[in-house]
């Protein structure tokens, strides 16, 4: 029996129960393997206790099974952090002849109205998952977004605003908080809400939850923009260096970090073998190409100082395009 045991540390809640200990290592904390229901000593691997309830599922349901023959006797996995516990039951479809009336419709039709109090919240969670899926956001960001939305929803201070707007703003804040900010335009691209409304909701939510977010920097977006432009790693590192140096030397006061990042990518790509036009970079970054031009004009005079020292120039610095 090839059993890949998973060692899961248990909490100290089990301290109240009569302690079983390993005979060889009495003060070793036993590790519970929930799959097989064992308690295992981590020092010597001895299986000590074996009367733990197995919380694995009773039946496995495959998608090609007939839909009516689902033998599982339990419901969906609980989402206790979010919608108030899912302890509602549904009446299943009838099977016998008595459950159908004369026209062939089933008599008992009430399969709806599960959790009416949180219907809007569940809808919003679904919307958040859809939005996050479009830009391939990982599960931790989605969870954080759901938590933020729940907090905002319970506070009711933004009750009048569209739930989709609040959800989009929560997604933006979650990305920021996880250290991987997305631009407002990127969130706009996956949401039906305008940038203005998302911006407004963003500020309102920060005030309602009394949190703050870190300021965006040019480096936050480099890896994403450069990958989308299929630029090699050296160009990405050079662009990061250029943008950072430009901000340090205060060559671009008052410019949005996105515009500075875009201009840095332009300069780095033009100096390398993989040249990209301003229009391409503008499309990826969501900035207008005149904006890239403006920021590029500001950093162009100090171009030799901005490149990293170990950069291999395909086009030398003095031959960089001058717009």
């Amino acid at each position, binding site marked *: 029996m090839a059993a890949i045991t998973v060692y899961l540390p248990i909490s100290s809640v089990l301290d109240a129960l009569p302690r079983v200990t390993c005979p060889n290592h009495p003060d070793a904390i036993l590790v519970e393997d929930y799959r097989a229901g064992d308690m295992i000593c981590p020092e010597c691997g001895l299986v000590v206790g074996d009367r733990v309830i197995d919380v694995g599922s009773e039946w496995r349901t495959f998608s090609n099974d007939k839909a009516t023959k689902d033998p599982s006797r339990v419901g969906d996995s609980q989402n206790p952090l979010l919608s108030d516990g899912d302890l509602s039951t549904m009446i299943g479809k009838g099977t016998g002849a008595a459950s159908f009336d004369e026209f062939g419709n089933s008599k008992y039709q009430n399969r709806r109205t599960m959790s009416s109090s949180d219907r809007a919240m569940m809808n919003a969670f679904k919307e958040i998952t859809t939005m996050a899926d479009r830009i391939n956001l990982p599960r931790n960001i989605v969870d954080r977004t759901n938590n933020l939305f729940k907090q905002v929803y319970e506070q009711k201070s933004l009750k009048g605003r569209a739930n989709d707007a609040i959800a989009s703003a929560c997604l933006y804040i979650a990305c920021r908080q996880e250290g991987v900010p997305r631009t407002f335009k990127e969130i706009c691209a996956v949401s039906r809400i305008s940038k203005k409304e998302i*911006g407004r909701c963003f500020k309102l939510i920060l005030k309602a939850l009394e949190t*703050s977010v870190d300021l965006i920097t040019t480096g936050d977006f480099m890896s994403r923009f450069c990958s989308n432009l299929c630029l090699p790693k050296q160009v990405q590192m050079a662009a990061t260096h250029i943008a950072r140096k430009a901000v340090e*030397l*205060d060559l671009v*006061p008052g410019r949005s970090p996105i515009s500075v990042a875009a201009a840095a990518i332009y300069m780095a790509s033009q100096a390398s073998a993989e040249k990209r036009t301003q229009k391409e970079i503008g499309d990826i970054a969501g900035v207008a190409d005149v904006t890239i031009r403006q920021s590029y004009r500001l950093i162009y005079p100090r171009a030799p100082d901005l490149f990293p020292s170990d950069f291999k120039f395909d086009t030398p610095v003095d031959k960089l395009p001058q717009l």
Partner: protein
Amino acid sequence: MDQNNSLPPYAQGLASPQGAMTPGIPIFSPMMPYGTGLTPQPIQNTNSLSILEEQQRQQQQQQQQQQQQQQQAVATAAASVQQSTSQQSTQGASGQTPQLFHSQTLTTAPLPGTTPLYPSPMTPMTPITPATPASESSGIVPQLQNIVSTVNLGCKLDLKTIALRARNAEYNPKRFAAVIMRIREPRTTALIFSSGKMVCTGAKSEEQSRLAARKYARVVQKLGFPAKFLDFKIQNMVGSCDVKFPIRLEGLVLTHQQFSSYEPELFPGLIYRMIKPRIVLLIFVSGKVVLTGAKVRAEIYEAFENIYPILKGFRKTT
């Protein structure tokens, strides 16, 4: 001085175009002050919409203010020498300023609590040593850029008549339910609603706003409506100034997180919401500062005096 920039008065009874509904009130008499003494005004004594009287009243108030100022400038200059911090002096001064700046026109009056850098011709050359408080004040005075005020004309108006008969009036009921009227001196715009309430924007000082509102009310009165001048109130004042050095907004948002909001993606300036006084400041990298949300001029000055030392701390060194 008395500017009739609305329609000529004779046109009222004669050319009522398209049978417009002119109210059956007899043609005005320029000499008849309308509604004198009927509705007591909290501030001024006359209800007349005559511009001449308004300007005379303003001049009288100016003279009174200047006399008060001279006395107060002496008192506060002496007091500010004794006070240790400029913080106290601004607070002490702001207690006095409401009466001082209540209806102040643009005179060369120095702020109480600040050293008069160049003595104005009004203040006496008394031998008071120039105050050098422990932390010096900025010496920069924010200039008012816009005043928004409201007034109730006290009677229902027919916007269509006003739009048809008045000059410089536009009315597009599908877009907005008010007549938009403009006058050239002082250069302002008014929104006149059918309920009789009016919003006057664009003036550069409190007195100009009041004068402009009176002119609009006079225009409406000349069109035949029994306009009064009730509850004139300044709702918002916007000021701007330049601290003359670049500012590190990132540093400011880090230290004053609970008041500041800086989102370069949304707006290039930092939005600083000061609690006391309740003013919103837009602070830009170039050093320009816009202050808004004030009901009285003193709030703008106080807010700027509060923010100036903070901004000095975030001056860009290069």
